[in-house]
């Protein structure tokens, strides 16, 4: 029902933007699934704020509600409306490619935001803007190696199976760990589906299965805090190093309390602003590289004070 409200709201917004289409650029954005998690919700409001700030942009905000078919329909609507550029947060890296090609053929530049699309679609997009998830996995592996002093046995709780972000982080982590830290053994990986309760259950089972666990790498802090909960319940939190990604407020607090070693700071505000800026650069005719990654630094107790507490 909420999705319908956003859709209705965006239709109203569309008519408003058409009515006062005086700004030089009209940019349409079709998002993955606003409202389902805090990151995407914050992204949307940050995107609207950034457009407001830029001044010369009118935006058409659409939300696919996680539905590929609806997103393809929204792409076609945006093409029909002849917007100047389209930003897409793909619901699926493969299935949206034909719609992106249509936009490309209609002469509308497409910027992909946050999650990559498959290799085959890259020739049709003007640019990608988002976090470098492979690099994040690499950074987490290095943090893990430092924290354990190069030795130990760890487990991994990955994100949703089949989701690009989850796979890229896991790959980056596993490859870098094997290469830089041969003394640390990855015992097992299980998916936690970006869900804290799910991750908590997986960790409880890991704790039963393995008498010694020195570290846990989680695909995001939401799951990482679930793992921390489980370890606390088993009185084993003190002997385990917790490292996550996408620093959540709960993870930030846990780092502050000294229960959680570190994470990767990824701000949805930076993500949204980078996407809009990339689209504006493309429209201004600048040379824009295909892959644009915004900064996602490591965050540990040492540099915690340099970062604001995440809003999600």
């Amino acid at each position, binding site marked *: 029902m909420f999705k319908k409200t956003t859709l209705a709201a965006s239709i109203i917004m569309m008519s408003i933007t058409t009515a006062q289409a005086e700004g030089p650029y009209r940019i349409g954005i079709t998002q993955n699934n606003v*409202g389902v998690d805090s990151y995407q919700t914050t992204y949307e409001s940050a995107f609207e704020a950034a457009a407001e700030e830029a001044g010369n942009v009118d935006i058409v905000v659409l939300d696919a509600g996680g539905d590929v078919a609806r997103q393809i329909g929204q792409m076609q609507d945006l093409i029909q409306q002849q917007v100047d550029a389209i930003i897409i947060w793909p619901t699926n890296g493969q299935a949206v490619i034909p719609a992106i090609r249509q936009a490309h053929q209609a002469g509308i530049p497409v910027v992909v935001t946050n999650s990559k699309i498959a290799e085959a679609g890259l020739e049709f997009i003007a640019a990608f803007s988002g976090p470098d998830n492979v690099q994040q996995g690499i950074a987490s592996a290095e943090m893990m190696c430092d924290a354990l002093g190069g030795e130990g046995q760890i487990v991994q709780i990955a994100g949703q199976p089949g989701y690009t972000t989850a796979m890229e982080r896991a790959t980056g982590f596993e490859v870098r760990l094997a290469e830089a830290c041969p003394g640390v053994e990855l015992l097992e990986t*299980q998916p936690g589906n970006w869900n804290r309760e799910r991750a908590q259950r997986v960790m409880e089972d890991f704790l039963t299965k393995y008498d010694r666990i020195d570290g846990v790498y989680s695909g995001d802090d939401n799951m990482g805090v*679930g793992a921390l909960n489980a370890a606390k319940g088993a009185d084993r939190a003190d002997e385990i190093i917790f490292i996550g990604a996408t620093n959540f407020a*709960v993870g930030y607090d846990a780092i502050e309390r000294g229960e959680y070693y570190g994470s990767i700071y990824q701000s949805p505000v930076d993500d949204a602003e980078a996407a809009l800026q990339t689209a504006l650069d493309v429209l201004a005719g600048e040379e824009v590289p295909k892959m644009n990654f915004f900064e996602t630094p490591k965050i540990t107790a040492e540099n915690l004070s340099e970062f604001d507490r995440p809003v999600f």
Partner: protein
Amino acid sequence: MAFAEQSKSNLPAGKLSKASVMSFLSAQGILIFFLVGMFVFSFFSEQFLSQSNIMTVVRQASIIGIIAVGVTVVIIGGNLDLSVGSMLSFSTVLVVDLHDKVGPTTAILMMFALTLMLGAVNGILIGFLRLNSLIVTLAMLSAIQGFVLIYSGGQNVDIANQDGTWFAFFGRGYLGGIAVPILLFGLLAILVQVVMSYTGYGRRIFAVGGNPMAAVYSGIRKNWCVFSTYLISAFCVACAALVLGSRVMGSQNNVGQGYELLVLAGIILGGTSLLGGAGSIWKTVIGVLILGFIQNGLLLMGYPYYIQWIVTWVIIILAVWLDLANKRKRLLTTHS
């Protein structure tokens, strides 16, 4: 299995004939399956039958179990409740969000009141307006998820001071060495089973589910009976939300997504008929535990947990088939 089964074999009792052994096996098939399954799993993982693992699994299963107790009553009364997944999200988000705003006691009371209100809406629509329960609760499933998203604005909710609140008791506490979620699950299951087996109210629910027309002619106020089953179901969801919110100390706004199907799977696995008028809470408890042990056992053996979906499917089909085979006294159909 101290309580009477609702469906009795019509074969003469007393003699230990081949037929009576067979009928015992198929009537108690799910329990036997459970024990055999535990035995097999224990070969593959030495920790599987350890006390701490069993406690872990039962504690993990208790959230689904608590909900399943309530939904079993609805199903015995001849209806369905698919709205429990969203209702769980609603109640968990509510109790966690209100915890820091108004304090744990008020938060819990408000959460119970609002969850019961949702149950009452289901109950009025299905009990008094006599709308189809499948459609009503399916619609409620998406409507309630919508409320949750509007209420939370899509943000996760968290309890800020996780170590300094007695709210932790419900999901993380222990009483006499047993985890509180397990105690809650056990207490609710025993209470509801006793009510269903030994009180006039329980018999009326069985009557309404088994033969609504006959129930009405015997002077049972069917509308009220159906209405009350949805209150019981909502009450159980509220208890589950208490455990879940306290266990996680936070909530995603879709945390209960898919729980309605897990709950149904546990109930069907236990052998409660979806047609109403038959079933028992004990069977549901065993069904839910089987699901929990499959998930845990596969993980201890190193398989990704979603293999359990496939395994669960196989087991449900087998359970339904054996149940039917038992009723018609042969494995395949009687008519071609």
